[in-house]
């Protein structure tokens, strides 16, 4: 029959193989063959010429299935993965649902708080915060100008929603990422385990894990987009915390040891302060990356500027898409400049 038949015969597996049929849905190639051979029956009766060596197919699941019915096809394998997920989902739900619930609460709470605050309080508040963090008049002017501009073109509400989501997600990223980064810097094993996971988080297409998550949580839960943003944006803060602590001068640590500091004192009194510029750079990158996820998050019903971008794409309303895209860039620039200015102040105070 098929090309790998001989192997199964020599291995003495013919009986095991013969249990199930080797058929599958007819492929386009087989149909074409029928069409070009002037009748399916005639083709089936003709003696089979040998397959040329160069065209030997790779012994994949589908190819082997043709020789041996007991070997599952690739589509059986993928549906088994699906089955498997659906079987464990109830167990997963019991664990993951309560664990991630605070994220939903915080996102919803912050969204309503940001929106309930009227603009004439919110904008001065943001200005004050910017000035306190950056002590820079030019950054303050940029922030004020941007928000006044967005409010003027009626994008203020969307921008505030986006800002609120980024605010909550950044808090979670820092609260989780800094301890993970510290643990990584303390243990080489931990670092070896974590780095591949971080690489995966940055490359895994978001929908690959978001769609299974919808089976676990309700699609209406805000934590869905929260998780999507956090998993992607947490990476730089972990990496740079790890790097920052590892870069602390050995001599300084030696001096701390000489003073008889215990490891907690060393961490809080020496390593973290010295690593702070790196950690802040990580936080800055984390904020940038959560902004990058805003549009994708809107695909799972996150409010904000991403919704407008999607509307622009779906309806081919180029203007809507371009203007809201520009507002996202504006938010990115002002968040970047404010955190950079804050970082600059920390660096200056170190010297």
């Amino acid at each position, binding site marked *: *029959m*098929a*090309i790998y*038949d001989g192997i199964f015969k020599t291995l003495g597996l013919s009986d095991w193989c013969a249990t199930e049929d*080797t058929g599958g*849905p*007819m*492929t*386009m*190639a*087989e*149909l*074409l*063959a*029928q*069409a*070009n*051979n*002037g*009748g*399916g029956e005639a*083709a*089936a009766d*003709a003696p*089979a*010429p040998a*397959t040329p060596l160069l*065209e030997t197919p790779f012994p994949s699941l589908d190819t082997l299935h*043709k020789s041996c019915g007991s070997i599952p096809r690739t*589509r*059986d394998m*993928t*549906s088994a993965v699906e089955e498997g997920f*659906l079987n464990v*989902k109830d167990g997963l739900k019991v664990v993951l649902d309560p664990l991630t619930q605070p994220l939903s609460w915080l996102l919803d709470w912050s969204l309503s708080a940001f929106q309930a605050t009227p603009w004439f309080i919110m904008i001065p508040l943001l200005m004050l915060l910017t000035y306190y963090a950056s002590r820079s008049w030019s950054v303050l002017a940029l922030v004020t100008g941007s928000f006044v501009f967005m409010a003027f073109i009626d994008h203020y509400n969307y921008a505030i929603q986006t800002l609120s989501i980024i605010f909550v997600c950044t808090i979670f990223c820092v609260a989780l990422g800094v301890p993970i980064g510290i643990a990584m810097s303390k243990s080489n094993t931990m670092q070896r385990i974590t780095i591949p996971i971080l690489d995966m988080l940055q490359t895994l297409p978001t*929908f690959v894990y*978001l*769609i299974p998550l*919808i*089976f676990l949580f*309700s*699609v*209406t839960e805000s934590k869905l987009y929260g998780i999507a943003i956090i998993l992607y944006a947490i990476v730089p803060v972990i990496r740079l915390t790890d790097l920052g602590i590892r870069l602390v001068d050995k001599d300084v640590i030696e001096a701390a040891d000489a003073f008889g500091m215990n490891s907690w004192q060393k961490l809080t009194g020496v390593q973290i302060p010295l690593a702070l510029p790196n950690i802040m750079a990580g936080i800055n990158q984390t904020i940038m990356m959560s902004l990058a996820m805003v549009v994708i*998050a*809107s*695909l*799972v*019903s*996150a409010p904000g500027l991403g*919704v407008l971008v*999607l*509307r*622009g*794409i*779906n*309806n*081919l309303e180029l203007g809507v898409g371009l203007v809201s895209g520009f507002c996202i860039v504006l938010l990115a620039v002002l968040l970047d400049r404010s955190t950079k200015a804050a970082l600059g102040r920390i660096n200056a105070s170190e010297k």
Partner: protein
Amino acid sequence: MKKLLVAATLGLAAPAAAYADCGEVSITEMNWASAAVVTNVSKFLMEQGYGCDVTVVPSSTVPSLASVSETGKPDIVTELWINGAPSYNALQEAGTIVTLGDVLSDGGVEGWWIPTYLVEAHPELATVEGVLANPELLDSRFHNCPDGWGCKNINAALAEAFDLEGNGFEVFQHGSGETMATSIAAAFENQEPWIGYYWAPTSVLGKYPMTLVDLGPHDPEVHACNADPECETAGKSSYPVGPVKTVVTTTFQEENPDIAAMMANVSFTNAQMGEVLAWQEANNASAEEAAVHFLSNNSDVWSGWISEEAKGKLAALIK
């Protein structure tokens, strides 16, 4: 099986000689299940029956028409849901495109759907009055289309007209079609309540049996107003059966009248399409395999679509 494999390699080489009179044709493949079947069946008929060199362009409703209006390509846009394509009328009037016919002869069915197991347990949910009276049976949540879909405005207007929120429903707007489909699947896995907008024929409705909620009679004027975001007086009207067309560019029709004539005949009933999609779902098959399934089992249907000459070329498959 080996014979078939070998024959397949021969078969793949053979059509190259057949590209004679037709030339290159581009056809859209919309990003949903029934469209993929239509495209694969059409591709096979054009390649094998007419000797065309077919390029499949993955696309969706709005971008495909935008591409046609800006660049004149792709040549053929099939499974075009007119209701969701605002630029269709303008292009039709400008003479850029020619409508060939209904690719789904029964039209597309849009509306509000409820899982059939819910209707069996609570028969009163089959009508909108029953739905409004029992929000607690439906998780008090209506699943609306994502922003940017034509149905979003219509559903928002209907929700206002039926006073969904006043009856205790929360209207949840999805961010994308993927999450909508997944929420249906998740509801079925957990046997939970679900009510929202969807459309048939789709693989989602092929896989999960759902019942259309009776929204009362259809009123074209009210419906047009509901669909228009500028129109403020929302009214009650069910969805009309949506025309699903195949269109080609005017230049393509002039240059390839026989291909256009064949594409005008390509038309599936909802029963035929539903059968193919259900088979595809049951066998975990690809769209191409689903097209092969249709082609190998329904030669009486598609042999009526093609010219005598093409019938001669495909005689081996016609039973």
